[in-house]
């Protein structure tokens, strides 16, 4: 009997679990994010300068497309980010809906404008590349259309979030839309395999070889890593501002303001 009562006492939490719980506390998250943001911006800056230099100056021109191949260093990383940010928004939306953690709601909603921006870059850069190579700015093939749908999904999430006054209710409604919209992600990815499209198939795959020369691949991968740091830096910055805004009457925000003055 004695051993039974001993196990009923609250067990000590694993350090990782404890850390995650701490991140859910607004003041702790605010401090923690604040420490990381300058480093994320710095790494993003260094990698972008390096990636753009290698891509726009050092990398060779393509044997068929000539100089216009250089748009790839913008288009492909932006396209990857448009999908990665959407999936991270959907996963965070799922966590927000089930566990109702306010920081996660804020992070999910702060992802939407960043993802929308990357989608716009993808569509614009792709369109500018399409004109000289394909001979047209736009076609309604499955890849281009599903990427455009992704932009509308982002805009829908942003719009829904802003149309409801109570921020937590708004976040929940928008998170549900984000989760439902995630069915578009496999469609975008496999569109070039499932249907005949004007858009070419994937040149780079995690498994198996890539059909892009390595001199062109490295700048592309550097840009892909750089954009991830941009997402991290921008997301944490936005989340911190949103947190201050929502908690402006709470004691911890007042304390920060007092320290600043």
């Amino acid at each position, binding site marked *: 009997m004695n051993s039974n009562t001993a196990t009923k006492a609250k067990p000590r939490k694993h350090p990782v679990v404890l850390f995650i719980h701490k991140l859910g506390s607004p003041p702790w998250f605010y401090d923690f994010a604040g420490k990381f943001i300058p480093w994320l911006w710095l790494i993003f800056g260094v990698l972008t300068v390096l990636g753009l230099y290698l891509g726009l100056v050092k990398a*060779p*021109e393509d*044997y068929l*497309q000539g100089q216009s191949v250089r748009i790839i260093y913008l288009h492909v990383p932006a396209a990857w980010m448009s999908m990665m940010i959407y999936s991270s928004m959907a996963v965070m939306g799922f966590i927000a809906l089930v566990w109702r953690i306010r920081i996660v709601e804020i992070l999910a909603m702060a992802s939407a404008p960043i993802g929308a921006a990357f989608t716009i870059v993808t569509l614009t850069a792709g369109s500018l590349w399409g004109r000289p190579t*394909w*001979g047209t700015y736009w076609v309604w*093939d499955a890849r281009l259309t599903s990427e455009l749908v992704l932009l509308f999904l982002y805009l829908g999430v942003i719009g829904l979030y802003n149309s409801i006054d109570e921020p937590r209710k708004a976040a929940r409604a928008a998170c549900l839309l984000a989760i439902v919209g995630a069915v578009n992600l496999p469609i975008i990815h496999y569109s070039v395999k499932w249907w*005949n499209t*004007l858009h070419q198939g994937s040149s780079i795959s995690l498994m198996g070889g890539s059909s*892009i020369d390595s001199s062109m691949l490295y700048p592309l991968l550097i840009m892909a890593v750089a954009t991830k740091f941009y997402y991290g830096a921008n997301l944490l910055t936005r989340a911190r501002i949103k947190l201050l805004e929502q908690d402006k009457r709470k004691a911890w925000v007042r304390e920060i303001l007092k320290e600043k003055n």
Partner: protein
Amino acid sequence: MTPTRKRRLVAVLLILAGVSVASTIAFYSLQENMLYFQSPSDLAVQPIPPGRQFRLGGLVKPGTVERQEGGLATQFIVTDGPKEVLVEYVGILPDLFREGQGVIARGSLNGTGTFDASEVLAKHDENYMPPEVADALEETGHVLPKKPNS
């Protein structure tokens, strides 16, 4: 996990499953319409009546590009291996138009089985390489797209 959270989890998962099933069914039924172009082999299996607009896709058969002297008229054969279709086009071709290159032409078949194109787009493949690598590949016997008459 508390019962409330479990209930929410099940609700969200059910919504997600429902939407996935619905969109899968929708996309299966749309599959035919989602094909951006027909290949010459598709045409052989399922002929399209003359005069009806569609897109024809395939490779430009090397050595078949003929340009009219002093005009914009071009004709070439589009092939996908087993089948081929003769295409006639009047207009400016995209920069990437090459022999051996993928193209998508919009237009319709005329009475004699020739495809009258009103628009020709070049389809780029997923290969990217510098000119030196392309030259080296050609020397080892790979066939790459080439500019006609150059």
